[in-house]
């Protein structure tokens, strides 16, 4: 390891905040060589990005302070190097790409200008930089490089923007590319394309790749070696295969165990009555069709998953069922009564029976209301549980039901973690004793271990209380574990639907097959096998 191109040794970084000192990373060490891919795996708050930011000199100091350690690049300690010399290395020898390419590209300059700047900032002539930029924009797979140069970041899709970021990072043929959650904001099929592109480019240029991620599937697909971080420390390190198949640390085992998509597939029981039946639902925004003849049926006590990529119409479907949007045509029968044609009074009582849980509990819970107020608010609207003592008792029960404590009722949302907040949102939905809960990407923003807990909670509610779920998600692993039936949507249309087992084990439509193939398995061997069979001649 002594001759690694980039090596972080014994690095400790503190953050000084108003609430005291946080040890963001403690004695972290990793190394990467040319041609190699190292993954830094961890959940939110694990400190997985901190050491990479230290390498790039991107930590804001203060509040950050490097307490100890060395960052050796070609044997030279970057922490003892002048700021000007480190600036000269950034982009030229070590480049970095980020999670959110829209935010990380400057909105007011053309992408061509920003890509060219990578070279001009290091003293290269502008015309050479332009030629190289055109070459790379074509290489990362964007059509019409000349025109793309003159466009602005907001005129591209998320996947295209990440490709442009990659082109920018490769302008000076860096020895090392650090990618911080490069595919997290992208749809699975786009994620697969971007990861494949990174691998191809690595093979062409021989650069070393440091990939920061929370996703075991991404590690399995791309990493040679992996370090697992928890709470600011590296708890496990090794080859991707070793760490997945023979984890030593309890945290790693827990993380691998929580990875969705491994449970037993449920066989739906269609004997229960139909609760919600949607027939030929259509909705158009301007000239853009958001829903085209969507039909489905949800039985009592079952969970129906709607999957699809962004823009497929999943959320519009949920909003239309709740009458937050007005459908252009079609029917949505709730216990046989059409929701679309229902009058306001009937609608109010149906709305009590259908509750919704949103993706981001930080935004969907009012920060100025206590948990007690959040949960009991619905009772005021629907004139339920009038007695104060009864209310307090019921709130306590609901909190226990979702795995929180009765005394949490007096606290406010900011005092909880993301997973706990989502439990509060579920308790709020349960307060009205709904028959159907619509979950719109309700577990997408949560860490895997928390995600598994929330899914287990929803499943127990389904079994114990007979609640049905309309489960909107893009993560197929979660859907496989939780759904009885699956509906696959694309551009507002249902492409394929059926029992979960059939969809996952024997998909009929090419789109469903593509979607499933792009969904990464956490097992590196499975991913290697898939790559092999994909590259073999058909």
């Amino acid at each position: 390891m002594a001759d690694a191109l980039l090596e972080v040794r014994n690095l400790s970084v503190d953050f000084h905040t108003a609430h005291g000192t946080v040890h963001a990373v403690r004695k972290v060490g990793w190394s990467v060589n040319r041609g190699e891919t190292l993954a830094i795996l961890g959940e939110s708050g694990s400190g997985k990005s901190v050491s990479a930011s230290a390498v790039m000199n991107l930590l804001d100091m203060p509040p950050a302070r490097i307490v100890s350690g060395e960052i050796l690049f070609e044997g030279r300690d970057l922490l003892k190097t002048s700021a000007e010399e480190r600036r000269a290395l950034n982009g030229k020898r070590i480049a970095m790409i980020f999670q959110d390419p829209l935010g990380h590209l400057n909105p007011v300059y053309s992408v061509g200008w920003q890509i060219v700047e990578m070279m001009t900032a290091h003293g290269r002539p502008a015309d050479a930089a332009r030629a190289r930029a055109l070459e790379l924009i074509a290489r990362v797979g964007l059509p019409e490089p000349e025109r793309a140069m003159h466009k602005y970041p907001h005129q591209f899709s998320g996947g295209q923007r990440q490709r442009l970021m990659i082109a920018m990072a490769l302008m000076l043929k860096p020895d090392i590319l650090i990618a911080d959650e490069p595919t997290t904001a992208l749809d699975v099929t786009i994620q697969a394309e971007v990861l494949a592109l990174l691998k191809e480019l690595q093979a062409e240029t021989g650069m070393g790749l440091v990939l920061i991620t929370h996703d075991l599937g991404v590690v399995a697909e791309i990493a040679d070696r992996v370090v697992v971080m928890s709470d600011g420390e590296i708890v496990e390190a090794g080859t991707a295969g070793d760490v997945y198949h023979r984890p030593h640390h309890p945290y790693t085992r827990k993380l691998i165990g929580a990875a969705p998509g491994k449970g037993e597939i449920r066989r739906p029981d269609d004997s229960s009555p139909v609760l919600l039946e949607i027939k030929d639902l259509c909705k158009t925004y301007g000239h853009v069709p958001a829903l085209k003849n969507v039909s489905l049926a949800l039985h009592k006590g079952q969970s129906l998953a709607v999957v699809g990529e962004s823009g497929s119409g999943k959320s519009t479907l949920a909003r239309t069922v709740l009458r937050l949007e007005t459908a252009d045509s079609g029917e949505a029968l709730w216990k046989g009564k059409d929701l679309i044609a229902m009058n306001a009074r009937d609608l109010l009582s149906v709305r009590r029976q259908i509750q919704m849980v949103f993706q981001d509990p930080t935004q969907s819970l009012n920060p100025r209301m206590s948990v007690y107020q959040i949960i009991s608010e619905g009772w005021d609207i629907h004139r339920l549980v009038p007695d104060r003592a009864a209310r307090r008792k019921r709130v306590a029960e609901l909190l226990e039901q979702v795995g929180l404590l009765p005394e949490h009722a007096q606290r406010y949302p900011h005092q909880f973690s993301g997973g706990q907040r989502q439990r509060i949102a579920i308790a709020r939905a349960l307060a009205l004793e709904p028959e159907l809960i619509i979950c719109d990407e309700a577990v997408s923003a949560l860490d895997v271990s928390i995600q598994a807990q929330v899914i287990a909670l929803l499943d127990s509610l389904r079994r114990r209380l007979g609640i049905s779920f309309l489960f909107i998600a893009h993560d197929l692993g979660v859907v496989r574990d939780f759904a009885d039936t699956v509906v696959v949507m694309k551009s507002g249309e249902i492409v394929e639907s059926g029992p979960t087992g059939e969809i996952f084990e024997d998909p009929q439509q090419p789109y469903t097959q593509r979607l499933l193939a792009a969904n990464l398995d956490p097992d590196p061997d499975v991913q290697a096998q898939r790559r092999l069979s994909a590259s073999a001649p058909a």
Partner: protein
Amino acid sequence: MTRLIGQRAIASLLSLMGLMILVFFLSRLTGDPAVLFLPIDATEQMKQQFRALHGLDAPLIEQFGRYVWDLVHLDFGESLRKARPAIDVVLEAYAWTLPLALITMGLVVVAAIVLGALAAFNIGGFFDRLVSVVSLIGASAPDFWIAIVAIVVFSLNLAWLPTSGVGTPMHWVLPVAVLFVRPFGLIVQVVRGSMLSALTAPYVKTARAKGVKNGPIIFIHTLRNAMLPVITVIGDQAAALLNGAVVVETIFGFPGIGKLMIDSILQRDFNVVLAAIMVTAIAIFLMNILIDIAYSLLDPRIRH
């Protein structure tokens, strides 16, 4: 972009028409010019003659019709005070106010942007604190007081600069300097605040990861984004100057539109007041269109 400017121009024209109507009727409420202009012992016959001469004896609605007809022909009538076409009097004064406003605003914008941006980059440092204190004083000190102190110090005690009037470039120094203070103080604070939030934007991180130097990060990557809210404030402050700096022009005996307007109002010189309001309104509308153009030049998301 052309469509955006076209829409703005039409909206401006409509507002201008509203303003015309408002000004006419409001100014008629302030009193009878015949009483003010003629000697205190003027006979009723003299007053009648005066009114007839200036068309003030016709019914209000007829006066209004004639007023609109004349405006359309850019004829504001004679100045009662100076016996010359009102528009000439106004344009003469505006030829003083416009350069005063432009010079002052130009200096303010350059100084405020450079100092505000540097202060934000050195947040908490000595330079930042210095800029913050100076700008706070500038934004809160009353301009008439600064004007008088400046005259006492620089004209009377040191005798470096003339006290008032126009004629040499030295006559411009004190009015420009005094008018500079308040908008500078205000805009520097806005630039600093806007830069502070822009410097934490993710694209700044990207620029640092690219190895871009601090200078271009501040003045190319961040400043252009930070300028968007600043431009609104610049427009607001520039409008105040285009209106004529009444107090400062009066103190320094500067023959600009502000001084002309206050003199004309005091003496019920309606035609001049009208012409002055119309000219400044047109100037402000034109400036707002310039601001819109600046916006869309700075931010491609408005253009595309």
